[in-house]
């Protein structure tokens, strides 16, 4: 019969997210690598399936961002079948994607990123969680987080068919529209979402920005990288989370490229390292120069701060004001401070709330013209959306019957993978001197990658359901000289 055991989390980690720090002969950091698990066999798994299945299959890759996989896949089918959805269908899709980003960002701030600041980077690890946040800000706030998240998810459930794995997206449109009852309810949710976002920004200001230690940490050099940035923008170069063109800016903020999703292979290439299954995307026209920043390195970043950096602002007024305030504090645009991803995330939830209000005010969203039937032979399709964690690409090729012959995805965390390695290395270099490992190493390294809100997807369904942080420190010959685990030490 089964027996009672105590989990040794480290066993779950093998082959999964892992940090390796290599020391030189003097005991100082020469390299630090952040490894993420690579799911295998997607191409083979997809081959032979009908393309229309992909929006229902690909969300199952990830229990974290299923909605954005569904949207990216649905947009890919639009391209594949050469069909342009009617405007009401686009509004509905954008509403679903925006509701998802709102609730995911809110969850990240309060459950995952917030603990670093609200509870404090120096607080014991055991307190740096949502329970610690609530202990500090009050039980009522916890209830508000739960309530607004539930209501935002209800938008996805009602319109998407199912909350976890939406099924509404079809090539050329969506399967159902809004009822008047939906609209009335969602309007209240959207209005409350705006207020919740404003409250969250105020909380950030009160707890973080009024604390000089935290501000110094955000604007300091430990987590700073001057990279390129990429994100979707609308026709006015404002942040858009669902549609538009991809805009890339240089480390000094000039527009470097602006392109349609279908041209992504002209701009993005993938670098392979022998120590990782993960390929590291970089800007093709700059080139791969290693894990370094600066204008000569093709490393680029995605996700909230990158999206704001790559844009000329926010398309809604209150988010624009929050955007301006953030850059004023950070000393101008683009901002290179990785910890400012948390702040940018809050600016985006305000945008998401305001955008939901706008979408629901638009009478077109009530139209029953929600589908353009595809009539052309499918060939090849590329779709892109902004996921909470950054730009997400889907790319399929089919035969003339619409049967998948090739499929490829570039997920957001992979776009940020090189930068995450760099951030981890920078933190490690600051905390390991002459072979002495500072006690704060784990916390600081953890903060370095958590700011990106990376998603290792996918395999983390398995117990214990989360990825413990393990750091291996190796000598120049690759022998482990120290192994640290947040579980063990925390």
């Amino acid at each position, binding site marked *: *019969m*089964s*027996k*009672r*055991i*105590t*989990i040794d*989390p480290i*066993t*779950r980690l093998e*082959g999964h997210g892992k940090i390796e720090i290599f020391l030189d002969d003097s005991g100082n950091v020469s390299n630090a690598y952040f490894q993420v*698990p690579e*799911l*295998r*066999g*997607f191409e083979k*798994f997809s081959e032979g399936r009908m393309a229309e299945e992909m929006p229902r*299959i690909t969300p*199952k*890759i990830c*229990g*974290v961002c*299923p909605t954005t996989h569904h949207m990216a896949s649905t947009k890919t089918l639009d391209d594949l079948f050469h069909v342009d959805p009617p405007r009401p269908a686009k509004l509905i899709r954008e509403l679903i994607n925006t509701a998802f980003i709102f609730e*995911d960002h809110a969850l*990240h701030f309060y*459950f*995952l990123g917030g603990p670093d600041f609200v509870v404090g980077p120096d607080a014991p690890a*055991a307190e*740096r*969680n*949502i*329970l610690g946040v609530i202990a500090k800000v009050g039980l009522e706030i*916890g*209830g508000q987080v*739960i309530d607004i998240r*539930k209501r935002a998810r209800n938008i996805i459930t009602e319109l998407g068919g199912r*909350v*976890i*794995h939406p099924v509404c997206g079809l090539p050329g449109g969506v399967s159902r529209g809004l009822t008047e009852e939906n609209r009335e309810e969602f309007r209240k949710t959207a209005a409350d979402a705006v207020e919740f976002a404003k409250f969250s920004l105020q909380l950030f200001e009160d707890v973080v920005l009024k604390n000089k230690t935290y501000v110094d940490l955000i604007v300091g050099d430990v987590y700073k990288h001057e990279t390129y940035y990429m994100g979707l923008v609308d026709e006015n170069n404002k942040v858009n989370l669902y549609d538009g063109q991809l805009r890339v800016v240089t480390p000094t903020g000039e527009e470097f490229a602006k392109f349609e999703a279908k041209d992504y292979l002209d701009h993005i290439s993938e670098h392979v390292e022998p120590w990782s299954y993960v390929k590291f995307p970089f800007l093709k026209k700059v080139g791969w120069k290693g894990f370094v920043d600066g204008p000569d390195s093709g490393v680029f970043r995605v996700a909230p701060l990158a999206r704001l950096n790559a844009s000329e602002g926010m398309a809604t007024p209150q988010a624009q004001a929050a955007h301006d305030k953030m850059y004023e504090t950070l000393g101008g645009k683009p901002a290179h401070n990785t910890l400012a991803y948390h702040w940018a995330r809050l600016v985006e939830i305000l945008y998401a709330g305001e955008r939901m209000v706008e979408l629901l005010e638009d009478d077109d969203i009530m139209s029953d013209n929600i589908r353009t039937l595809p009539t052309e032979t499918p060939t090849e399709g590329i779709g892109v959306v902004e996921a909470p964690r950054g730009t997400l690409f889907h790319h399929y090729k089919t035969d003339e019957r619409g049967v998948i012959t090739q499929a490829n995805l570039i997920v957001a965390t992979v776009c940020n993978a090189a930068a995450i390695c760099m951030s981890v290395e920078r933190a490690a270099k600051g905390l390991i001197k002459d072979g002495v490992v500072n006690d704060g190493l784990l916390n600081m390294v953890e903060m370095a*990658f*958590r700011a*990106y*809100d990376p*998603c*290792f997807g*996918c*395999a*983390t*369904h*398995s*117990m*214990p*359901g*989360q*990825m*413990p*942080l393990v750091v291996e420190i190796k000598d120049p010959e690759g022998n482990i000289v120290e192994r640290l685990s*947040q*579980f063990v030490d*925390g």
Partner: protein
Amino acid sequence: MILGVGSSILTDDSVGLVVAGKLGERLAGRGDVDVGVNEEAGFSLLEESLGYDRLVVIDSILTGREPGTVMRLDLADLGRTIHSNSPHGANLATVMELGRQQNMDVPDEVVIYAIEVVDVLTFGEELTPALAARVGAIVDEIIGEVFPEPSDSTDERGRRP
């Protein structure tokens, strides 16, 4: 409430879903239990469990034991992961504690049956053979654990009024 969790397209990661499916068939005649699946994790498990006396989660685990080995865990076993640095979601122990703090109607008892698996990184809809061969025995084992004696209750599904 019995809840199988995992991903249905990552080979053995689906074992919780597969076993829950079989349990659903075997327990269909009983009035005192609901059986479901959840391909998400963390917070949604809290939402699904509200109003039930007892939550039984079935999931996969990798510890190097024989494939199909069933390990019984409770929230205390997960407690050490409460401050884990997962970039997303929150673990079961954390969300249950959060639910209690918020006066939500969380189950009095949470038990996790973790099933040793082989491969959760390859896309596929079939379990690896060694694990697939054990599914029947796993189902028997979990039923024996969860329902050590026959229940007479027929009009309640384990959910509190």
